[in-house]
């Protein structure tokens, strides 16, 4: 088994977990109620998972460009171009999640409106993450490090 294929699997798992966990603060914060400390740490964990997915993605990216991308274009041009879309959406996923996590820690008890804004960013991040996961899984099913 290659280390790159393993890392890709780990990367994908981080992504799937992040998509699920990001939905939780979106729902908890939707009316702007203050969070308990535990819930704040849980939302930070969601941010950490997306950051981990993003970081491991960046780690395998140079090898993907050199080894997988040319073969992927050979098999399916459409899938290869979809990888570009995945990149864009991944950056937006991580930026919205980090902004929302920082807001959760900074907002005061009475800042319900800002926490509702954070709920919206978490919701956006979760939906984007789900899309990125769907794209990643589809692309990896066409061509991957393991093949």
């Amino acid at each position: 088994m290659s280390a790159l294929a393993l890392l890709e699997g780990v990367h994908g798992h981080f992504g799937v977990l992040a998509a699920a966990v990001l939905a939780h603060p979106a729902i908890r914060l939707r009316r702007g109620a203050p969070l308990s400390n535990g819930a704040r740490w849980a939302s930070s964990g969601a941010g950490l998972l997306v950051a981990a997915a993003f970081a491991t993605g960046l780690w395998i990216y140079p090898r993907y460009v050199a080894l997988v991308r040319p073969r992927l274009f050979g098999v399916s041009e459409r899938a290869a171009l979809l990888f570009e879309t995945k990149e864009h959406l991944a950056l937006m996923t991580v930026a919205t999640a980090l902004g929302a996590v920082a807001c959760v820690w900074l907002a005061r008890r009475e800042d319900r409106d800002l926490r509702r804004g954070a709920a919206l960013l978490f919701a956006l991040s979760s939906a984007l993450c789900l899309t990125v996961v769907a794209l990643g899984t589809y692309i990896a099913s066409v061509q991957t490090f393991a093949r």
Partner: protein
Amino acid sequence: MIHFLLAFGVLAAMGLAALAWLPATPRREAREARDAHDPAPTKTASAGEAGWRRSSAAGALAFGLGASASYMLLRALERVRDGALSPGLVLRASHVGFVWRTAVALWLGGLVALVVQALAARSPAPLGAPSAGATGERRWHLATALGVLVLGVAAWWLA
């Protein structure tokens, strides 16, 4: 398929945002009040610190949307410069382009956050503050929902 997924993403985000308008049941209100525990209650914090926290939280939200919008703007500029996406173009590109775009977008997002933080700190009755009342809060939500919609449409175009 990608367009369907993007539309689903935007609709899911807006649907969750719409949930915020549902009235809370008294039982739910009581539970949330019991659960909430702020380690630094604003009652004991100085007015300056309370204001700093509020404006910084607004800055944090602006970072999320600002970095995303900056990334799309950078990508759109590349599209205008290089023309439509083609296999040749993608195959020639190295991984460094994405890393740079990411770094610049995050930096621009930081700038947007600083500007919004400064504006919010100076504004006497910030948009959506309790003193702004229900209309102010609705305006704030409408502005955020519109932001999400614009991001969705831009992502659609770039896909």
